[in-house]
């Protein structure tokens, strides 16, 4: 194979990335459901013809898919091999199997072989989060599922197109299994358009530069990514570093679940060993092995920002994920709450890295997506379902305090405007505010979580919540403290208020008119010792209401009045004696 000159390589890198980016953009524009259109819960890329490894991936899709999609493509490659299928130009597979293909049932994958000169040059793939794929709970976040069959339909890789001819039967089966068949049809079409566009653009590029050059570019980009990752690893001191973090429970049995990680650094290789992790659980916080690897990739990309989105990054990394672990389940274990578990995997990665390279780390982010829905019937009998994810604080970091009210590290989704929610559903927010004392204390404080309080305006409704971090706050690093716990309250009795038995997971909370539910989300973990925080910053935090005077005393050993006036002398005394 010819070695490309560095210029050609950089040029082709840009052109190839642009193809994947453009596939992303095509789906975002044409998708019907807001989870893709607004929250960009989708991804596209080019994958290796033989191994399915990610060659190029779009930059605007959901971060976690960057790692997961290669497994989906590999699933198609394996099927083709086992079943002796001869792939033809114009074939497209569709499926949502979460065990081999990653993530959860809501994510439908389309995989298409790309032919050049009669051979498969690579695969093109598209994944998008569909609005409803059947199952017990609308929107598919079922916190009490014990089998995948309660979560939605499960489709193995089947031909959607054969040699360019659409199999209408498949669409009929898919539509008949969804509460929102129209939305499903729109999204599926958008994904097909994205694949078509990728096909056209790649054809043009091959014509312009020739197969040799493009192939060399893909190989060299992969090698360059591997070199880059290896070089970052070799900067880290050899040794074994460990941390663990916890999930509150699985929604079925109220027992904490451990994510234990040991990272072994040996020169320019890194092993991620998850052996100390809890076994598979009954409830829906399990994930498949492919999802686990994908989430490690997300964490690595947050830590080593310069590494590109291709499989080369994972080349210097070895994984140990025991088969009985909740991080490598198979059918029919429920997986719809995978977001919570991969957030925890990312948190534990940051905690380990903070021991190896404090300057590259940060306190953990709020660590739960808080999928909250409210549903009922309007006076005219029309059914309504409000469904949204909520935000929280990011961790303190070497450059400063954590971001207030950010989005989860696994996505770049934004929250819908409250005015849009109020216009669409019979609810009103009575509070939409930052949550004082929620940021984990630290030299650099964790960002604040939020308080959302919602009042029902119709006569009756039910509320559903799938959340986490109700028992174990987002940990700080380098001596920083944890952020506040996730807290959900709903009315009970005449004037009473209570929280769910499973802390942040519950179905069918019954609400009457003018009753309110309240979600208080975690802040981020702190970075560094809180007693080393500049007392002036603590006083400023009190003055602005991010931190209470009491917390300034308890957590920072600072004497500050309620209106934020610092008593420097008293503070010096407090800090000396502690």
């Amino acid at each position: 194979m010819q070695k490309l000159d560095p210029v050609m390589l950089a040029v082709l890198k840009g052109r190839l990335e642009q193809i994947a980016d453009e596939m992303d953009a095509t789906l975002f524009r044409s998708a019907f459901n807001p989870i893709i259109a607004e929250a960009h819960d989708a991804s596209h890329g080019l994958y290796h013809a033989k191994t399915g490894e990610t060659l190029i991936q779009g930059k605007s899709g959901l971060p976690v898919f960057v790692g997961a999609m290669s497994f989906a493509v590999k699933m198609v490659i394996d099927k083709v091999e086992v079943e002796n299928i001869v792939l033809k130009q114009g074939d497209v597979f569709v499926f949502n199997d979460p065990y081999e293909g990653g993530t959860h049932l809501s994510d439908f994958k389309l995989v298409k072989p790309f032919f050049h000169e009669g051979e498969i040059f690579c695969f093109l793939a598209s994944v998008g989060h569909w609005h409803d794929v059947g199952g017990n709970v609308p929107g598919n976040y079922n916190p009490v599922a014990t089998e995948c069959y309660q979560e939605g339909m499960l489709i193995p890789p089947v031909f959607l197109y054969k040699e360019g001819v659409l199999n209408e039967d498949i669409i009929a089966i898919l539509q008949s299994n969804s509460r929102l068949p129209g939305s499903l049809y729109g999204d599926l079409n958008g994904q097909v358009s994205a694949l078509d566009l990728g096909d056209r653009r790649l054809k043009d590029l091959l014509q312009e530069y020739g197969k040799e050059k493009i192939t060399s570019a893909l190989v060299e980009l992969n090698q360059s990514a591997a070199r880059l990752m290896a070089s970052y690893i070799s900067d880290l001191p050899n040794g074994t570093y460990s941390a663990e973090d916890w999930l509150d429970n699985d929604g079925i049995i109220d027992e904490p679940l451990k994510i234990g990680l040991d990272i072994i650094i040996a020169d320019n290789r890194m092993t991620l060993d998850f052996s100390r992790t809890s076994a598979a659980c009954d409830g829906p916080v399990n994930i498949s092995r492919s999802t686990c690897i994908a989430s490690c990739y997300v964490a690595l990309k947050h830590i080593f920002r310069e590494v590109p989105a291709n499989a080369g990054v994972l080349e210097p990394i070895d994984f140990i994920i025991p088969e009985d672990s909740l991080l490598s389940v198979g059918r029919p274990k429920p997986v719809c709450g995978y977001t919570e578990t991969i957030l925890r995997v990312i948190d534990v990665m940051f905690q380990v890295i903070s021991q190896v390279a404090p300057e590259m780390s940060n306190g953990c982010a709020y660590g739960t997506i808080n999928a909250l829905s409210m549903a009922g019937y309007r006076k005219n009998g029309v059914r309504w379902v409000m469904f949204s994810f909520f935000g929280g604080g990011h961790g303190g970091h070497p450059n400063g305090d954590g971001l207030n009210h950010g989005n989860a590290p696994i996505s770049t989704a934004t929250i819908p405007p409250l005015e849009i929610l109020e216009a669409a559903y019979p609810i009103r927010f009575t509070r939409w505010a930052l949550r004082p004392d929620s940021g984990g204390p630290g030299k650099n404080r964790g960002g604040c979580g939020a308080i959302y309080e919602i009042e029902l305006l119709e006569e009756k409704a039910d509320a559903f919540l799938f959340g986490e971090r109700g028992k174990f706050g987002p940990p700080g690093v380098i001596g920083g403290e944890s952020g506040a716990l996730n807290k959900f309250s709903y009315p009970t009795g005449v004037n009473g208020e209570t929280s769910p038995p499973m802390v942040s997971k519950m179905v069918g909370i019954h609400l009457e008119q003018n009753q309110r539910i309240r979600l208080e989300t975690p802040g981020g973990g702190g970075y560094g010792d809180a007693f080393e925080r500049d007392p002036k910053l603590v006083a400023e935090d009190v003055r602005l209401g991010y931190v209470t005077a009491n917390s300034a005393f308890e957590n920072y050993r600072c004497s500050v009045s309620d209106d934020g006036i610092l008593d420097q002398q008293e503070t010096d005394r407090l800090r000396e004696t502690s």
Partner: protein
Amino acid sequence: MVSKPKRSRTVVGVDVGGTFTDVFFLNEVDGSCDVAKVPSTRSDQSVGIQEGIAQQLKKLSEVSLIIHGTTVGTNALLERKGAKTGIITTRGFRDVIEMRRRDRPETWGLWGMFEPIVSRELRVEVDERVLADGTILTQLDASDVKSAAGKLLSLGAESVCIFFINSYANDTNEKLAVKTLKEIWPNDHITSSSEILPEIREFERCSTATLNAYLQPPIGDYLERLEGGLQKGGFGGEVLIVQSNGGVMSVNMARSFPVRTALSGPAAGVIAGAYIGVSAGFPNLITCDMGGTSFDVSLVADGESALAAQTAVDFGMVVRTPMIEITTIGAGGGSIASVDRGGLLQIGPESAGSDPGPVCYGQGNDRPTVTDANVVLGRINAEKPIGGKLARLDVDAAKKAIKIHVADLLEIEIMDAAEAIIRVANAKMAGAIRLVSVERGHDPEKFVAMPFGGGGALHAGALIKDVGLSKALVPRYPGVTSALGCIIADMRFDRVHTINAVLDDLDIRKLASEIKKTAEDGQKRLVEADVTFDGVEHLIELDMLYLGQTHTVAVRLPVGLEDIKSSLNTNVIRTAFENTYEKVFGRLLHNIGIRVLNLRVTVIGRRPKFDLSILGPSGDYTIEEAKIDSREVWFEGKWRQTDVYSRLNLPKEQVVSGPALLEQPDTTIFIDPDLEGKVDQFGNLIISRKNV
């Protein structure tokens, strides 16, 4: 409605950039024009403006109209130098501006930070509440506003913003708050969110209104200094300010709505680009503005520039007013070339900007930039730097930097490394052009590239080849394009109002009178200023979508203002929606309801244009006489003897065959060996492929 032309004298367009203030003079009596370029005066832009005008005109009284593209607003936002501002808001919602839409600055890395322009203590809550359907749940008590204002004043607030939840649906409480404030607030820096942007989406409305309040004092002061200074110099005419949407507004409007100037500067350049392109017979073009740190592209299709609904000036600083859509990537003359640990050559995102600037400036930067590569390759004349600030450029220092930071790491020769930097930078810029053209479904062969600003013309040839554009068009004065744009920009008034109703339930009569009222209000604001119009136009649009969707399409209603009450009905709206939807998405959806989200009314006062052929070459020189030099330029691996021409002396319709360098005071143009250039009757240089 056409107003009377005034005594014709000189119309002046002024664009104040970070480095230079550019002035374009048009004498309306004899049609002659002139340009001036002076250093910008950062502390007070109005000083530079007067100096620029004085360069060509003895007396300010000769000027009838000054049209001004300003970066005062942009700079105040970026440098956080607006006024101390307070917000009075609904109880429970003072953190809206700080919570944003729950986002983060970068996809990768969790170290984002954000400091809202109004700190938490300056955000005061009062009891009041409007529901989404406009019902007032809680009446506002005026005395609460008074005490809130008292608190803000005691904290030193100079400007105030009223932002209530759902005020787009019913502005009664906000209006009462404004009325109350007017009695006690010591100045007129009062902004209300429903006045600035009566559109659903609380964060975007709050952010836009608050930034408006934040800008009122500095922009107000600036405009006062500007007008005062001009009047002292004998100026008796009118001043107009360019808005981000590419239209102009009166000084009074700019005082009330300063947030509309947030992207005033770049907008004027695109307006000029569109006009020059249409005049020269190229109504489809992509303007490319290469500055020190960034490369801005904007698409003009059929002579119309694309508008974006909103932009973020910085992370979390969202301005939602219609503005010319400009896509920016980090590839400017100052962008730094480096080789990453994986062995890949990168351009940017780090930049040396204009200070310290490229290595060859000798001001302390030692990492090679795109400009350094151009100097080493012989494309930029090291003996004649643009702008006249430096005597000469240090070629050897640039070479050394390229050797250390690129050539040695890639194990290639210095000259090859310099060329590699240019090619990778070109590829990056080509990517930005593809993003706004190919990726939006436009056929690149139908478009021409129009570089303006100082740096773009060196790269134009490579860009047309990379993207497959038909030609490049370099305007006569690329360095003063924005100032020229000021002269020809139309007066424009935009207004949006959220309707949020299902089409079948829509009160058509109410909508019609709302449209009429808004349009008449806009028209009134147009004639406030003493400005000549060739005509006035109205654009009436609805943002519409199928029930359940979140992205709207802008539907232009085919109705006139005069007979709107009789011509507007549900079917007209439905047909207009379906036509638009089918055009955008290729198909319609059946049996799904249709929602009307927003009403948009735009009133445009068409200002007289001038004939660009006055910019055409004088015809005093032959092509041989225009040739001033010959030097070696490195291209595709070897030195080539290249003729250097004085661009402004080139006669029209004569072919300049590449390789060639065309020099003029404000830019240098490189014509690749496989391209050729020709000057048209307007003085534009058209670069195209050689016929083989």
